C-alpha cells in the first residue's frame, strides 16, 4: 500500500497499518570530542504525532538522522515494536518502513520532479527484463502532488524549483513510499501558512490512518496545533517529555531556552526618519516581477509579504545587483544604483542576507571567521596586501560574541554547526559590515525562538541607528513584530500596502491569500 494508492482512494480508513511503536532508547551521540546527544529517550506511537523541540543545535536533527539510519548512535539503541533494530544505512530504515524528510531539501538538479520523488525506489515492470515503469512513476507522482495541492509540473527539472517547492516535494516523497514511520525535520520553515495547513491536513490524515509521525519545528503555534506528544531537547538532553496538554506556549519556550522569554508582540517604538534611503521605481525583471514601486526611509523597517514564488527574492536580488534590470530605476539616497554590481553596492553600504544559506549564504567548509569577514575583506587590516590575522580573529570573535554563535572555536567550519547557528553566522557576516541598507531574506529561517528574539532586537537596534531594513518573511508574526510598513507581493506585483496598526497577522495573510482568491476567481471565469 503506497501513498499514491492511498491518495487515489476515496478517503481515509483503508487500513492495513498495524500500529507501530518506534523507540529511541538512551541514545547518545558524539562527533569526535563533541557530545551532541545524551540519554535521549523518545517513543513514537502509531496514530500520533510526536514533536521534538529545542534550540538550534540542541540535537534534534541528529536524533532524526539516527532514527532514520543515516547516523549510528554512540550509545543506546532503537526499537521497532519492541524489537531492537540496528540500522546500517538509510536503505535499512526504508526496508523497515522508516522515512526521513530532511531539514535541507536534497537537490537532484538534473532530474525531473517525478523521478526525484522515486529516487531509490523506482517501480519496475516486466517479467524477464525488469524495466523502470515510467508510466507508473508519472501517474503516481502526479497523484501525490495533486493530493498535496502542489502546482508543480512533474517534468520540470528539479534545479528550477524554489527551495520551498523542493521542501514540499520532499514531503510528498515521504508519502510515496510504503513507510509507516515518517520523520519530518523542520518541514515548515520555508512554507507559508497556507502550505503549512495543507501539510498538516495530510499529516492528520496519515495519523488517522495509523501512521507513526514525528515532527520538528521551532514555531510554537504549529507545535501546539499538530502535536500529540512533545519532547524538548536542550544541549542534547531531554528536558521535558509529555503529552501536548501538559505544556503551554510559555512553558515550552522556557524549557527550550532554560529561561523566561518576553512574548512576541508588536513593536512599540518606530525609528523612521525623514531621510530617503531607497527608492524603487517601475522595477521589472521578466518574468519574475513587474513595475515594483516603493521607497524606504532611514530607520524604517519594511516588510515584504507574499506566497512562495511571489518574486520577493528576485526583487531583493535585483536591487542587490545580482540580476539584470529589465526596466525601472533604483536609487540609494539620491544616487542612482540601477544595475550597479553587488561588490560596488557593498562598498556603498548595502547588504543582502540571502534566504538559502547553503547555496548562497555561507561557505560551509570554511571557518566561522573566514565566513564573517568574507562580506568585506577590505575591513580587515592589511599590510602590503597581506591580511592581518590578529585583526581578522578580532572581528570574528566580536561577531561570535555579539550574535551568540554557539561554537567550539573560531576556526570551526560551518559544517560542524547546527542549522540555526549557521544562519547566525550568515547574519553576522552581513550585519557586521555596518550597512546603511539591509535586505533580509527570511532572516530567521530555521532559527530557534531564543535566537529569533535576539535577531529581532538586533534588527530593531539597526533601525534605531538609522539603517534602512527590508525584511522578506513568510511568517506573518515576524512581520507584525518588526515592520513599520508591509508590502504584499502577489505574482510579481505589489497588491497591498499595510502600515502601522493595520499590520496584523490576519491582515497580512489575507492580503496575499486574497490575491490568490482573485486569481482563482479569474480562472473560474475563464473556464466558464
Amino acid at each position, binding site marked *: 500500500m503506497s501513498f499514491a494508492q492511498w491518495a487515489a482512494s476515496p478517503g481515509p480508513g483503508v487500513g492495513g497499518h498495524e500500529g507501530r511503536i518506534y523507540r529511541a532508547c538512551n541514545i547518545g551521540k558524539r562527533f569526535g570530542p563533541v557530545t551532541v546527544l545524551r540519554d535521549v529517550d523518545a517513543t513514537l506511537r502509531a496514530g500520533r504525532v510526536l514533536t521534538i523541540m529545542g534550540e538550534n543545535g540542541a540535537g534534534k536533527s541528529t536524533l532524526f538522522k539516527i532514527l*532514520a539510519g*543515516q547516523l549510528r548512535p554512540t550509545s543506546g539503541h532503537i526499537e521497532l515494536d519492541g524489537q531492537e533494530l540496528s540500522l546500517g*544505512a*538509510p*536503505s535499512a*530504515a*526504508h526496508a523497515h518502513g522508516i522515512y*526521513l524528510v*530532511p531539514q535541507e531539501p*536534497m*537537490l*537532484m*538538479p*538534473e*532530474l525531473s520532479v517525478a*523521478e526525484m520523488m522515486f*529516487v*531509490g*525506489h*523506482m517501480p*519496475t515492470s516486466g517479467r524477464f*527484463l*525488469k*524495466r*523502470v515503469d515510467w508510466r507508473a512513476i508519472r501517474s503516481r507522482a502526479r497523484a501525490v502532488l495533486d493530493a498535496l495541492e502542489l502546482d508543480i*509540473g512533474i*517534468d*520540470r*527539472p*528539479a*534545479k*528550477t524549483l524554489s527551495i520551498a517547492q523542493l521542501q514540499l516535494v520532499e514531503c510528498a516523497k515521504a508519502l510515496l513510499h510504503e513507510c509507516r514511520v515518517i520523520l519530518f525535520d523542520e518541514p515548515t520553515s520555508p512554507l507559508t501558512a497556507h502550505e503549512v495547513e495543507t501539510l498538516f491536513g495530510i499529516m492528520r490524515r496519515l495519523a488517522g490512518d495509523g501512521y507513526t509521525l514525528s515532527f520538528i519545528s521551532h514555531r510554537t503555534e504549529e507545535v501546539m496545533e499538530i502535536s500529540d506528544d512533545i519532547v524538548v531537547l536542550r544541549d542534547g538532553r531531554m528536558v521535558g517529555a509529555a503529552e501536548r496538554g501538559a505544556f503551554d506556549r510559555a512553558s515550552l519556550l522556557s524549557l527550550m531556552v532554560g529561561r523566561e522569554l518576553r512574548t512576541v508582540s508588536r513593536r512599540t517604538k518606530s525609528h523612521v526618519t525623514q531621510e530617503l534611503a531607497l527608492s524603487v521605481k517601475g522595477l521589472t525583471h521578466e*518574468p519574475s516581477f513587474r513595475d515594483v514601486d516603493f521607497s524606504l526611509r532611514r530607520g524604517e523597517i519594511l516588510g515584504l509579504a507574499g506566497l512562495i514564488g511571489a518574486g520577493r527574492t528576485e526583487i531583493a536580488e535585483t536591487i542587490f545587483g545580482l540580476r539584470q534590470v529589465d526596466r525601472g530605476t533604483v536609487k540609494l539616497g539620491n544616487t542612482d544604483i540601477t544595475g550597479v554590481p553587488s561588490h560596488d553596492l557593498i562598498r556603498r553600504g548595502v547588504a543582502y542576507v540571502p534566504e538559502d544559506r547553503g547555496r548562497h549564504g555561507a561557505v560551509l567548509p570554511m571557518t566561522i571567521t573566514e565566513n564573517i569577514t568574507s562580506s568585506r575583506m577590505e575591513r580587515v587590516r592589511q599590510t602590503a596586501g597581506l591580511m592581518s590575522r590578529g585583526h581578522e580573529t578580532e572581528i570574528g570573535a566580536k561577531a561570535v560574541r555579539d550574535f551568540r554563535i554557539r561554537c567550539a572555536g573560531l576556526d570551526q567550519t560551518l559544517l560542524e554547526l547546527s542549522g540555526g547557528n549557521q544562519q547566525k553566522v550568515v547574519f553576522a557576516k552581513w550585519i557586521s559590515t555596518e550597512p546603511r541598507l539591509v535586505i533580509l531574506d527570511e532572516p530567521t529561517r530555521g532559527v530557534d525562538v531564543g535566537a529569533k528574539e535576539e535577531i529581532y532586537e538586533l534588527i530593531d537596534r539597526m533601525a534605531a541607528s538609522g539603517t534602512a531594513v527590508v525584511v522578506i518573511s513568510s511568517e506573518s508574526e515576524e512581520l507584525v513584530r518588526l515592520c513599520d510598513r508591509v508590502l504584499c507581493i502577489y505574482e510579481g506585483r505589489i497588491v497591498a500596502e499595510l502600515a502601522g496598526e493595520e499590520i496584523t497577522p490576519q491582515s497580512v495573510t489575507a492580503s496575499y491569500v486574497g490575491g490568490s482568491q482573485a486569481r482563482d476567481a479569474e480562472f473560474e471565469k475563464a473556464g466558464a
Partner: protein
Amino acid sequence: MGTKDDIERVLRRRGREVALVGVTLALVVVLGILQPRFVHLENLRFMLLGSVVLSLVALGQTFVIAMRGIDLSVAPLLGLSAMVCGLLAQSQGLPLWIAFALSLGIGVVLGAFNGLLVSALSIPPIVVTLGTYSIYSGFIFIYSQGTQVFSIPAAYGHLGNGYLVPWLPIPIPVLVLLVVLALCSFLLGYTRFGRALLAVGNNDAAAYNAGIPVGGIRIAVYALSGMLASFAGLMFLCYTGSATVTAGTGDHIELQSIAVALVGGTPINGGRGNLIGTVLGSLFLSVVLTALVFLRVPAIWYSAGEGLMILATVQAGLRRHRARDAEAVA
C-alpha cells in the same frame, strides 16, 4: 497531442542529437559538393568504422561522467586488453570467444578496482584514475616485455573489418557498436541501476539517504566503463590488426572520450547522460577529421580543428540547454 507538438517535444528533448545529426549531415553534404569522393560509400563507411573504438570507450566514459566521475584509465585499459588478447592470439591462436571473455574480464576487474578506490576510500575519481593510469600502463609493459602485436588470426580481422552477411553493407564493428549502444541505452534509461547512477551523479549524499547503495553503484559503473574500454581494445586490435604499448595512451583516447561525451551533451557535472549523443559526437569528430584531409588542410592543423570543433559544439549545446531550462520553468 498533434504531430506538431510531438515534433516539438522530440526537438526539445532530443535537441542535442538532432543538432549533431544536422551538422554532421551538413558537413557531409558540403564536402560532398566540394569533393564528390567524400560521399562515396567507401569513405562514409570508413568514417563510421573509424569512430567505433572511440565510441565504445566514450560510452563507458558517459556513464562515469553522468555519475559525476571521470575515468582517465580507459586509455591503458584499452591498450592492455589489445595487448593481452593480441599477443595471445599471435602466439597461441587464442580463440576469439576466449579473447572476448578475457577482454571483458580484464576491464571489469581493473575497472571495479577504480570504483573500489573511489567509493571505499573516497578518493576523487580524477585522482584514482590518474594513479591507475600509470599503474595499468605499467601492466602493459610488464605483460608485453616491450614486444608488439603485428599479426592476428583471420577471425579477428573478420570481426574488425568484415561483414556479417553479404547483403548487409554494414561492417561488423558498426553492428557491434549499435548493439552495445542499444544495451547501454536500456541500462541507463530503463533499469534501476541506470536511474540510480544518475541519482548518484546528481547528489550522492541524497542518493545515499534515499536508500541507494552508492558504493556498489560506483564500483559497478567504473567496472562498466573499464569493460567497455577493454572491449574497445579488442575491437581496436581487430580493426587495426596491430597493438603496441602505446595503443590508447599514445592517442590520448581518455581525453578524446571525455571530449566526445561532453560534445554529445553529457554535462561534466553529471546527473544526465546522453549515450546517443556520445556516439554521434564521435562520429562527428571522425567526419570533421576526414573532412580536413579532403580539404587539404595541412596535417599539423588537425588537432586545432578538433579543438575548435569541441568549443563550437559544446557552446552550441549549452545555448540549447539553457533555453530548454528556461522553457521548462515558464
